[in-house]
């Protein structure tokens, strides 16, 4: 496949296909991922190409899906499992945190866990309960796991490839409301930027705006709007949520003196809090203002007709920017 324009969902499909072609130990497992091609059609066409031994329609049992992937990994396979929606990962939470994350450590490195857990992530699609959540902090808190959060098609393709190649377990949070947003994908040239590094996607001088995955368009939109008021925001796409690329964020904050973190997850105990603490430690004498966060409230994700008030939006981000600049 040469360079082309693809929606994020199809970029992931291409990443999966190419990974499966180069390594016959890669296999996919999940609910409805075979004949149907997944509820978001991310695995569309792969069952036809690779068959039911490599694209496995599983019973509806998340702990079983992740737990069997552990056994397959011990046997030398590289399972890529799909969790249908973010809120459905919790039945598998035990397997992910007590088994997937710890098997390498438990066996003193004798066993690797090259498992990828793909999770459609975030809200804003008018869905019913448990279909719009942002549980990244729960997994970022667990040593042994890595987390990637692509926000565009190029990252979606390459992060899929790189997550599968990684010898550690990787959770990939896919921005589900952006699945059909197109972007350029170059599958022939491996990016110079490591998947574990953050990207400065818009340079600026007055403050740093950090976001990831589904929040990236909002961050860029906010920077555009702020620029119209003469405020130059530097926008960073975190890309990797575990590990977070602190050096890149700190370097930016040292330039701008201010940091606003935007994410959909509840602010309480969220990943933004961890980054804020680290940056406060690292950049204490460079900060002109405390690190601020804009995110979800300390509530269960609300019913769809209220989610617009729950999710960060342009006004809430710009309000955050104003509060930053007041200092």
């Amino acid at each position, binding site marked *: 496949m040469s360079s082309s324009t693809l929606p994020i969902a199809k970029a992931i499909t291409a990443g999966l296909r190419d990974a499966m072609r180069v390594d016959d130990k890669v296999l996919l497992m999940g609910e409805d991922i075979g004949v149907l091609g997944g509820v978001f059609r991310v695995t569309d066409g792969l069952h036809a190409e690779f068959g039911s031994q490599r694209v496995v329609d599983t*019973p509806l049992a998340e*702990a*079983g899906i992740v*737990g069997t992937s552990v056994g397959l990994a011990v*046997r030398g396979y590289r*399972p890529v499992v799909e969790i249908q929606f973010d809120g459905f990962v919790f*039945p598998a939470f035990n397997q992910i945190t007590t088994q997937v994350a710890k098997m390498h450590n438990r066996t003193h490195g*004798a066993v690797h866990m090259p498992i990828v857990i793909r999770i459609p992530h975030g809200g804003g699609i008018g869905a019913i309960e448990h279909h719009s959540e942002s549980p990244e902090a729960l997994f970022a808190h667990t040593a042994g796991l890595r987390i990637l959060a692509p926000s565009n098609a190029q990252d979606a393709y390459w992060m899929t490839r790189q997550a599968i190649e990684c010898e550690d377990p990787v959770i990939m949070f896919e921005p589900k409301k952006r699945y059909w947003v197109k972007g350029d994908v170059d599958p022939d040239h491996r990016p110079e930027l490591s998947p574990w590094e953050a990207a400065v996607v818009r340079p600026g001088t007055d403050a740093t705006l950090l976001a990831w995955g589904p929040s990236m368009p909002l961050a860029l939109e906010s920077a555009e709007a702020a620029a119209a008021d003469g405020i130059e925001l530097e926008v960073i796409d975190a890309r990797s949520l575990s590990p977070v690329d602190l*050096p890149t964020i700190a370097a930016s904050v040292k330039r701008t003196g201010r940091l606003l973190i935007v994410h959909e997850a509840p602010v309480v105990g969220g990943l933004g809090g961890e980054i804020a603490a680290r940056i406060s430690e690292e950049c204490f004498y460079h900060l002109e203002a405390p690190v601020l966060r804009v995110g979800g409230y300390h509530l269960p994700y609300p019913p769809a007709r209220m989610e617009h008030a729950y999710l960060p939006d342009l006004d809430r981000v710009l309000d955050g920017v104003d509060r930053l600049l007041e200092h």
Partner: protein
Amino acid sequence: MSVFRSTIPDVAAQEPLIQLLATDGTRSPHEELDAVLAGSGGDDDLQTPERLRGYYRDMVMIRAADLEATSLQRQGQLGLWASALGQEAAQIGAGHASREQDYLVPTYREHGIAWARGIEPWRLLESYRGVSHGGWDPNELRTHPYMIVLGSQAPHAVGYAMGLQRDGVVGTGDRETDTAVLALFGDGASSEGEVSESFTFSASFEAPVVFFTQNNQWAISVPTSVQSRVPLAQRSRGWGIPSVRVDGNDVLAVLAAVRDALDAARAGEGPRFIEAVTYRMAAHTTSDDASRYRPAVEEQEWAEKDPILRLRRHLEQLGEIDEAFVARCDEEAQDLAMQLHHHIHGMEDPDPVGMFTHAYAEPHPIVEAERAQYLEYIAQFEDDESTEQKGGRA
């Protein structure tokens, strides 16, 4: 009259218990299992006097190791010990039923399985002493790590079995090639959702896995009757997984049933489930006080069903055991206990910096930074020490 039908009590009452050795050692015939023991699948005869004496020795050895480990815990050398006293026949029988190429997936009380697999008992103690969370390479010894979160290992077993299918080492007809997985868990773990999900996956994909439950009657203080309204052997049948209930204190019944099940799994006939009815003679762990919930009379009843004594009586009836052999086994067991003692006393605490080594397989900047931070923190005390030493010399 209701349209609903229960398996209670009719079928439960009828659930048979397969036994080949009675408590007094008398051997009863069993058409199918006798064929398995005699080597119907092209195996050696599994019940030659020599082999029977081997099972006896193995059970004596692990009981001695187990008692010594309990002593070591009482002496403060182990943080905890989970005794398998009374379950020797279930574990030695199941362990010897597997072939070298099979993958065994234990819980944390499978010391007899480890022994049958050739894992030295002191390697089991590493995790109970607190120097490791594991102790062996699962692929090298074809034995999964001990598992603390009950039932978590059952889907691992099924996943490994699914890998065997994809590797083409199931149902080839070559007994050296065909491979299966033996998943072990207790009656308590069988209540966990992941065990049920494992039944689902193994049945759906006809995975070559044998589930082996040692029903030792108690899940810490909760009896099996609170875990299940039907005999555990019936549980898997709802998934279409054939099952059997065997006397878990009868090494031959266990050996034959597990061998039969593994043969079927290796041949590509899908999963099997075995409930081995046994008894945990000690407390749940050394932290537990079984006298608070368990009547002494029950322990006495089960002591009479002792698996080691039973095999010895059988060998006596066959005229295939003498005092010299028994004494030799006891002596070897005593030596093993001493070895365990010496290994523990010679076991040094690991260097804490090792904590940072295996959290990830690939370099991780935050772990690296924290390792450096730790080393720097430690180094300042080393500087202090060397300064003090210099001061002392001066």
